[in-house]
């Protein structure tokens, strides 16, 4: 009665379960749970085992009670003679029940705590691990894929830990216990039941396999239908404008019909499995009854562990057969349980495997040892200090134990940089750039020319060979990544705001910033004006990436966010692309103020944004083809000139 059936669609929405069970993963999962709750888990395990064993023995008592009854009837005696014996048997049974109930109740409670605690821990491990992954990972995997670790795979894991595994364990133990009890009573009958079990497994494999095949098909059809619906809903207004409704309906019908077909088949198989298995049990029951009856009539001598152990049971009698029939029923039920749970366990293991895959991902390497510290400059000598001074310095420990301090200025040099994301596909070739403190350097070029790649290298989202990029004269590979990035402010084209107030979002740039600092930053970015006009001003809640703001407004907030961090170097990657020219004119004053005194790298489509840069670098297919000031480039009448006069399309 938990989440999964409700979310059935989603849970099934995972990848089709691999048939191959990975033992290693299973063990690792179990070990991880134990490590999480060593005591609780031990108790739970013991309780489950004891409980399972106790649950399988009522049939023994039934046999004993009925034996007594049988005896009494045969002797023609009544309740008064045998009542006490029956009562004693009953009391023992009740005693066992009380133990079983107590253990069952405690075990379920513990399991609820363990499951949720374990899931929390796994989520945490995934998330923490993910924070340390290199950007490369996020570029290589789609958001949806990464998200499904947290939804589908965690769901599968939950299902496995809280339900499938315990049930699987319980059923297996009950099957084993019953098997021994059955052997205790009668070897022949047990063998017959075993024959039935083999049959059940075969049927499960055939029918279950069919269901599995079509469930995979259904999954694929669901994916296709969802993709279709998403595309059409996104383009719904175009559909309306072109009166394309009828054609859109016809296309949809085809996809929908296929999904129906697959879903129908998959569910048909799945729905049929239970009645089939249950009734095989009934047939088995009849066979046992017939043979048992025949044995009784013919007084066949019984072979069993019980008889060998000398506990009577040498001849078939009614009580034995009745009890055995009861056991057969229980045995079949549990076998059915086991075959039902296998699929779910396999799915859980597949989920666990993916969860571990994410956890095992190599985190971002960082061999940097140069750190950023607060500093004080007295007579040109820089000393480190604890308090915030707004003067920063690079603390550079050397191999010989000495430590030198270099003042943070924002001098960035790229020296003949080559780079490729994929082997054999160079993205940057022989790129050299010199940005002096306070200079504004602009990158212009078509999509894919390598503009963003350069910024990816400066903040070490991607690493290149040693010594090619230097920051204040220091090889950036020696700088600790966190400190390097703290010294750089970045505003990206795809603004990402987080759920929270506008103020929270601005403060993201500097967590200990006061409200006044945030507002000052917003003013600098030209965002203050519109923020004040929002319903709750700076306390307006932003949700789903600031859906209640326009793209231009989002960009302004993200500029303010970078401004409050007050870094010596800023990278603006299409930061104002969605602000219309009129608004940009207003913002540009703020932007100028923001850029003043900083080294700034600007990437922009809109040439009016880059015009006043100290250097404009025109990139084409990863190479610098022109560089110089706006005036100089216009004079050259090269590519930049063509772009500027609108004779060339950038995108």
């Amino acid at each position, binding site marked *: 009665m938990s989440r999964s*059936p409700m979310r059935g669609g989603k849970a099934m929405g995972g990848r089709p379960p691999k048939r191959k069970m990975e033992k290693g993963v299973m063990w690792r999962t179990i070990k991880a749970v134990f490590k999480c709750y060593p005591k609780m888990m031990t108790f739970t395990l013991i309780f489950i085992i004891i409980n399972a064993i106790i649950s399988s023995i009522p049939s023994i008592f039934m046999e004993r009670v009925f034996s007594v009854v049988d005896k009494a009837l045969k002797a023609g005696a009544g309740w008064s003679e045998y009542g006490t014996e029956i009562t004693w048997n009953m009391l023992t049974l009740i005693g066992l029940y009380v133990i079983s109930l107590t253990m069952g109740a405690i075990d379920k409670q513990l399991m609820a705590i363990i499951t949720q605690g374990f899931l929390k821990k796994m*989520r945490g491990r995934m998330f923490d691990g993910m924070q340390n992954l290199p950007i490369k990972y996020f570029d290589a995997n789609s958001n949806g894929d990464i998200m499904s670790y947290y939804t589908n795979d965690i769901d599968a894991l939950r299902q496995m830990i809280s339900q499938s595994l315990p049930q699987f364990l319980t059923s297996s133990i009950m099957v084993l216990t019953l098997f021994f009890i059955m052997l205790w009573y009668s070897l022949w009958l047990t063998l017959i039941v075993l024959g039935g079990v083999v049959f059940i497994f075969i049927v499960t494999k055939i029918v279950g396999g069919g269901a599995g095949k079509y469930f995979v098909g259904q999954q694929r059809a669901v994916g296709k239908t969802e993709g279709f619906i998403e595309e059409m809903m996104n383009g719904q207004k175009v559909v309306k404008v072109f009166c394309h409704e009828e054609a859109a309906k016809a296309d949809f019908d085809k996809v929908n019909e296929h999904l129906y077909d697959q879903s129908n088949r998959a569910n048909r198989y799945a729905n049929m499995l239970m009645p089939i298995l249950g009734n095989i049990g009934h047939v088995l029951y*009849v066979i046992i009854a017939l043979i048992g009856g025949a044995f009784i009539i013919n007084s066949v001598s019984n072979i069993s562990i019980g008889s060998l152990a000398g506990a009577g049971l040498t001849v078939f009698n009614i009580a034995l057969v009745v009890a055995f029939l009861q056991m057969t029923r229980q045995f079949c039920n549990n076998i059915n349980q086991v075959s039902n749970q296998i699929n779910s366990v396999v799915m859980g293991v597949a989920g666990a495997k993916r969860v571990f895959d994410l956890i095992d991902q190599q985190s971002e390497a960082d061999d940097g040892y140069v750190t950023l510290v607060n500093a004080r400059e007295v007579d040109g000598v820089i000393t480190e200090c604890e308090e915030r001074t707004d003067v920063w310095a690079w603390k550079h420990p050397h191999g010989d134990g000495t430590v030198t301090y270099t003042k943070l200025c924002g001098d960035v040099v790229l020296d003949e940089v080559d780079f490729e994301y994929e082997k054999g596909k160079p993205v940057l070739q022989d790129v050299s750039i010199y940005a002096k403190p306070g200079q504004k350097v602009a990158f212009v070029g078509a999509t894919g020319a390598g503009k963003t790649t350069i910024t990816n290298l400066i903040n070490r989202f991607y690493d290149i060979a040693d010594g090619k990029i230097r920051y204040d004269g220091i090889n950036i590979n020696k700088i600790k990544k966190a400190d390097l990035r703290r010294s750089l402010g970045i505003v990206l084209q795809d603004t990402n705001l987080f759920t929270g107030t506008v103020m929270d979002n601005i403060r993201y740039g500097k967590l200990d910033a006061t409200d006044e600092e945030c507002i000052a930053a917003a003013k600098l970015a030209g965002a203050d004006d519109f923020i004040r006009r929002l319903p709750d001003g700076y306390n307006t809640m932003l949700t789903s990436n600031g859906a209640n703001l326009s793209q231009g407004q989002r960009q302004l907030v993200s500029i303010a966010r970078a401004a409050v961090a007050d870094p010596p170097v800023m990278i603006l990657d299409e930061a104002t692309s969605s602000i219309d020219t009129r608004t940009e004119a207003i913002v540009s004053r703020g932007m100028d103020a923001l850029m003043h005194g900083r080294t700034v790298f600007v990437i922009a489509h809109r040439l009016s944004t880059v015009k006043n840069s100290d250097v404009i670098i025109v990139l084409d297919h990863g190479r610098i083809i022109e560089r110089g000031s706006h005036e100089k480039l216009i004079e050259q009448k090269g590519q930049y000139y063509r772009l500027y006069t609108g004779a060339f399309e950038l995108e």
Partner: protein
Amino acid sequence: MIKVLAKSVREYKAASILSPFFVALEVVMECLIPFIISKLVNSIDVAAGATVKMSEIWMYGGILIAMAFASLLFGALAGAFCAKASAGFAKNLRKDLYYKVQDFSFENIDKFSTPSLVTRMTTDVTNVQFAYMMLIRMAVRSPLMMVFSLVMTFVMGGSLGWIFVAVIPPLALLLLLIAKKAMPLFHRVFKKYDNLNESIQENIRGMRVVKSFVREDYEKKKFDHAATDVQMDFTKAERILAWNHPIMQFFFYGVLSTVLFLGSYFILRSNGATSVGEVSQLIVYGMQILMSLMMLSFVFVMLIMSVESARRICEILAEESTITSPENAVTEVENGDIDFNDVSFKYSAAAERYALEDVDLHIKSGETIGIIGGTGSSKTTLVNLISRLYDATEGAVCVGGRNVKDYDLTALRNSVAVVLQKNELFSGTIKENLRWGDANATDEELVEACKLAQADEFIQGFPNGYDTFIEQGGTNVSGGQKQRLCIARALLKKPKVLILDDSTSAVDTQTDALIRKAFREYIPQTTKIIIAQRTSSVEDADRIIIMDNGKINAIGTHKQLLGKNPIYTEVYTTQNKKSNDDMMSGGGDNE
């Protein structure tokens, strides 16, 4: 709500009825089977003094196997019909939703938002499908099972049956109580869980921001906090639910012991009138009764949980399109005249401000009109009224001399072609995309339209030419190429009015000019309305409309406006800022 949903069952009505029918038969079989089993056991029973009656064993064994097969058959049929009915119901629901949305007006679409429409057609339908499956199988099976089993206990056990009657109410009450207590908790925790997942998504999407600001540890702490909260709530809810099982077990054990004890007592007291077989089968019935109670409470919770999804689906099905064709609609648009007669418009009745106010505008067929204005000045709103994407709140919009409300929508929109600002290409070849404009267009016509839109050249440059496959969302063509394809698609409609809503923003100025030149030369009778950011795109228009804050600020030619209208002048000068050298001809920004 049920009435609305039930309409979607349609051709699966038979399966929907047959499924519970066979479920009922299956239940009857399942309830009779223990009865026959007890007979079978009794025939083995030699206690009554007789010998084992082998012939009886054969007879009952035969009956039992026949019944098992019948039960298997009924069960399998019930399962198959249930699968068909629920999958079919889901299919029809999806279809109805999709068809409904096709008939939605822009206003309806805005109201629901695209992601929400998608979820309703996918996740919500799946949830309802699952609930429907429960409803026509489990929800029928459990109560029937309970009633039949109860009857059988009386048939077989006589007064022992009262034990079960006594047990049902307290157990049902307890299960219901647990469900009632747990459900609001689950509701709450699911919401929190969704929020948690949303914040993970946010984190993944914003990973560059997180890393740039070195906020990894901050994010970890934030996450841990939220995850712990979810864990606490989940544990609380699950711990309540975890009582279900022990309670069931308690009652089961209780019933088992009582039946066993009293059963033996009765057998001995009655000297064998009640039989061992009967008592042992009573226990089976007891099990069935309790299990079906458990199932029932499960079904109950599942159904309640899917109510939310059902409600969201019904919301769409019940939504009436705000714009429909009138009766006796006019199907012919005479010419490209456009008139706005004192038009005002607001997006919803509740809105405080009008998006358009007092617009009085008259455009003659064949005119070229440019529209300029800042973000939020309602340029798009203005043109959207022409093809009746929205209805004017006050005043009347006329095309070809008639109110747009008089036209058949298809006829109107085929005559008024709009290239939307947020335009979309669909996965399929270029040809397929172009034929949205005219399904019967010949290849030559396609090429001709593309030539006008200056798209032919780059299409010919593709290895597969006009058969090039466009990926979903048109991601494999550049922004400028996409815009030109969209223009060509609109041209194929051979419209009387052509509206370009900021549709050449990514096209370079030269090509932009060529497109406008082609318009002038090849479709002179068509009324052309061009919304643009760049003044260069509208300079040569017959008239330029300046929009500001939902009102027409000025109308005039480039010459009339430049230097006189402050907005136009400002936009023009920012875009054509005279640099040191005055080489600037038409240039502007290249977004």
